């Protein structure tokens, strides 16, 4: 079985400061990992993914994520937070060779960037 944990329900950061949203996973084999963002009353938007290759993955809106196999983590980062980054963030995992059922999502982390 595959699972993903987002240990923080809420993350607050001041505008201009770096932000980190944490994600850890459990899966058999090499994972496929994803980050999504959701603004209020909107669908989820795909930010970035790790499939293979470089452990540092760059995505939309200046976000990046670092895959750490030894720590089974895939934390989302941004060097300088914007107020407009305030949203709900979801991490997701898929095991290789999985069925069409595919992605398992974390419970979400609410990011608030304070002006």
């Amino acid at each position, binding site marked *: 079985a595959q699972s993903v944990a987002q240990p923080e329900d809420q993350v607050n950061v001041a505008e201009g400061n770096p932000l980190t949203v944490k994600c850890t996973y459990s899966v058999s084999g090499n994972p496929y990992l994803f980050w999504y963002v959701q603004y209020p009353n909107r669908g989820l938007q795909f930010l970035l993914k790790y499939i293979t290759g470089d452990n540092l993955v760059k995505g939309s809106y200046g976000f990046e994520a670092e895959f750490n196999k030894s720590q089974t983590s895939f934390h989302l980062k941004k060097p300088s937070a914007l107020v407009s980054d305030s949203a709900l963030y979801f991490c997701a995992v898929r095991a290789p060779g999985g069925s069409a*059922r*595919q992605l398992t999502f974390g419970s979400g982390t609410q990011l608030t960037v304070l002006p």
Partner: protein
Amino acid sequence: SQTIHQWPATLVQPVGSPLSLECTVEGTSNPNLYWYRQAAGRGLQLLFYSVGIGQISSEVPQNLSASRPQDRQFILSSKKLLLSDSGFYLCAWRTPGATYEQYFGPGTRLTVT
């Protein structure tokens, strides 16, 4: 480019009434399609997924059903709504055999009164 539509955007229905939510995808063929429910603005619960016309897999036993009458059309239904069916319903698609991310529609906010 691909786009995904959901309607209606919002819906208020009384308990015991029927439900029909529709999702359509444009710009792709034979997508995998998914219905999720999000309660209280948090975690996503996969309800149904489909790998082709008429092929529906149910993840959680419940008051809902899904159908895929056309390649790019996915419908979520209920014969009699319960209060607990309230939530934010999201449709998603992915291209099978390609990259693994799913792409989500704008969602339908359902309130059962």
